[in-house]
């Protein structure tokens, strides 16, 4: 793998995150200003202390002006980035590299999305002139392709498979119920999840992440400077990002039970961070549970479960908050909500809280190494991001 990584060279010294949900009374500018000021305060900084900004949004604005205008940033660089649902992570990655390179001392990564203004159900993309052959598959349908393929490959009958998916949504709701910033702070019964109205069989509405508004931000500096600003920073161990060749819809050898892009980003990130046994070495993870089958497949792609066994780990509670490897302790996309450009930074926000012992009711005991995973696109045709972070250098 060509990437060399920047292990322990960059630290996060402040973060902010708005509540995610239906912010009828707030526009993208309100959310951005709120998250940015939370991050300034968290780092004990003034706006003028930040040298450069990376703004992630998929569709709630174009150019750096989306951020500089409401924040009144005083003549500093703001780069707008977009990488579908991994947009927030991409903003963070760029900010980290900027300070690691020495080009800037202090950088902010901030993401925002305002989805509830469109009036549409679910996520809407498009607008690029085309020849009309590309189809109109919705996001839940794209990810539902995983379910029959996984069930068939590993011999799960559809009802058993549905129970596994249901258990994933149930866990994420249970975790989200303990999170005051989550969109859905409510436990749901297995029965209510399993019987929710069908969106893309076998997925019901309760297998889908929350359509949400929100913003999250992080301030990064070089690791050696971290203690100037912050008593307990968190350190970047690995950042890996891949845009795949999109061979899933082209190649018969792709079987829709994996994301090759995720496997490759995990391998790269583990090499950067020096992780050899993720199932044992990782204390907690925030993964891209856009739909329940995604989370199921990610357990295997990230090396948390051997192939074909993640469903058993799900049923055994391995990924529960009290389990061996808690996944999505903050409720995940499912119950925290999924404002596209903000989600990758929201995942990092949970790492920040947990490693500093600030996660309240859902605090995991002494987490040392955390992972965030963020993807955009669809099975077989996606971009993937994996980060590894730690509470200590080394």
């Amino acid at each position, binding site marked *: 793998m060509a990437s060399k990584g920047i292990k322990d060279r960059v630290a996060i010294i402040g973060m902010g995150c708005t509540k995610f949900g239906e912010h009828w009374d707030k526009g993208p500018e309100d959310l951005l200003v709120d998250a940015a000021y939370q991050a300034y305060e968290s780092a004990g900084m003034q706006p003028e202390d930040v040298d450069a900004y990376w703004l992630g949004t998929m569709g709630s604005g174009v150019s750096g002006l989306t951020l500089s205008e409401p924040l009144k940033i005083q003549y500093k660089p703001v780069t707008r980035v977009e990488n579908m649902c991994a947009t927030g992570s991409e903003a963070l990655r760029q900010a980290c590299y900027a300070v690691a390179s020495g080009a800037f001392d202090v950088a902010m990564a901030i993401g925002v999305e305002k989805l509830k203004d469109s009036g*549409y*159900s679910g996520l809407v993309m*498009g607008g690029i*002139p*085309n020849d*009309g052959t590309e189809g109109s598959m919705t996001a839940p349908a794209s990810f*539902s392709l995983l379910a029959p393929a996984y069930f068939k490959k590993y011999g799960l009958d559809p009802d058993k498979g549905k129970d596994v998916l249901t258990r994933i949504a149930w866990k994420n709701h249970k975790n989200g119920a303990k999170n005051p910033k989550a969109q859905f702070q409510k436990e749901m019964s297995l029965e209510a999840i399993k019987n929710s109205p069908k*969106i*893309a069989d076998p997925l019901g509405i309760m297998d889908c992440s929350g359509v949400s508004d929100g913003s999250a931000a992080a301030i990064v500096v070089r690791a050696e400077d971290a203690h100037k600003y912050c008593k307990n920073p968190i350190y970047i161990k690995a950042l890996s990002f891949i845009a795949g060749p999109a061979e899933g819809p082209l190649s018969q050898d792709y079987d*829709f039970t994996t994301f090759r892009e995720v496997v490759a980003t995990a391998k790269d990130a583990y090499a950067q961070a020096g992780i050899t046994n993720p199932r044992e070495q990782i204390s907690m993870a925030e993964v891209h549970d856009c739909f329940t089958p995604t989370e199921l497949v990610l357990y295997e792609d990230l090396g948390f479960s051997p192939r074909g066994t993640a469903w058993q780990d799900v049923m055994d509670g391995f990924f529960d908050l009290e389990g061996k490897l808690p996944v999505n302790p903050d409720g995940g996309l499912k119950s925290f909500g999924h404002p596209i450009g903000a989600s990758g930074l929201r995942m990092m926000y949970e790492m920040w809280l947990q490693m500093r012992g600030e996660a309240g009711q859902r605090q995991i005991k002494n987490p040392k190494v955390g992972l965030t995973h963020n993807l955009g696109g669809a099975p077989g045709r996606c971009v993937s991001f994996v980060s590894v972070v730690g509470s200590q250098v080394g």
Partner: protein
Amino acid sequence: MTALLESAFNAGMAGIVSYGSYVPYRRLKRAAIAAVLGTPPGKGERAIASFDEDSVSMAVEASRDALKASPGEVQALIFATTTPPYAEKLSAAVIGAATQLPMEIRATDLTGSVRAGMSALLQGADAVSGGAKRTLVAIGDSRLAAPEGKAEQTTGDGAVAFVLGSENVIAEIEATASLTREFLDSWRAQGEQFSHSWEERFTLTQAHSPLLGTVIKNVLEKAKVAPGDLSKVILDAPNARAADEIARALKIDPTKFSDSFALTIGQTGAAHAGLMLTAALPSAKPGDRILVATVADGADAILFRVTAANAAFKPVHSVGRMIESKGDVTYANYLKWREILPTEPPRRPDPERPAGPPMMRSEKWKFGFIGSKCTNCGTPQLPPQLVCVKCHKRGFMEPYQFADRTAKIATYAIDRLAYSLNPPTVNVVIDFDGGGRFLCEMTDCEPEKVAIGDEVEMTFRRLFTADGVKNYFWKARPRR
């Protein structure tokens, strides 16, 4: 009259070389209409073009079969219909692109009356005698009729296509006759959804019966053939009683009249006479004489003589197979498909109009379903690629045809959120026999029955209409 006949104005002395028939998969039971509207229940059922079909897409399906059964050069293309998708824009161009005909063809749309189908056959034969090597005549109709009316019961949707030529002819044209008379029978003004028709007794006794009687008498006289020498009579008349009157007047054995598909398909407009002819041909023997006649604002008749080559001709899908391959549509869904019953749109954006330049660039892909094959590693791929998905080399791609290849379902999704006139949308990942994978919509299927490993074939459809642009592309369907 006799003098005119002796100086016979016949259509060109060409013949049928190949044919294809298309009956859409869906059927509407006449009892199902009655159950909703409270009208007296009719017998049988009628064929219904699916929500993603129209006269052009169905004509493409029939044309694909006709060309597949007899590959070879085509120099003229005539499309006939009473239901053209565009008031201005050549439908024949879509058919030519979808069937991969070269640009160097003469192409025409004929419309205006249900006799357009026969006109297309006559003009197609003229083109052959004028020097065209072969002519493709494609006829399709998706007829719309007002709820509760008789036409809603009696009409049907379908298509037929013929390759006409002078070599390897399976049924040659022996004589033709035409009559044209201004008559208020059926009419539909610009912008009107449904046709009107005059009172039946008047049209039967004053137009249909006398016009058909005369045109048949004329064509038989021209060919010096007696009514008793006919093996089959294909009479396409709006009123079934016309056949009884013709049989009586011309002393034709009533058993020689072909089944008009009244109980199975309905009257398929401009395509109907041709569709009936393709049903009659498989069992016809060398030397058999088949008479075809239609009536509307006049009448046309063609007398065919079947040749020895007919025995060896095998249609890709016979009409009988098309009739048996079917699934019901509810009356409510039919009304929604035709937008007779307006429905609340989903909370999703309307489909975007496809853009002219990208459509021009991808014509072979979009209309012909031509992908590419890497000559370095041999991997077929679609849509056509620049850099090989397998060996990652640039510059080795050659065109590769996928439209006629079968495939198997690798996985699938049932999308209840996407915009569709027929939710849920079934999406399938399909693996082509011989290589190549594609993700597309599946049509003419029952969503709950879709399974991994099912065999599918490709069909040309209209995905949606946006800003008046008919967005044609390909979908998978269960094998028919």
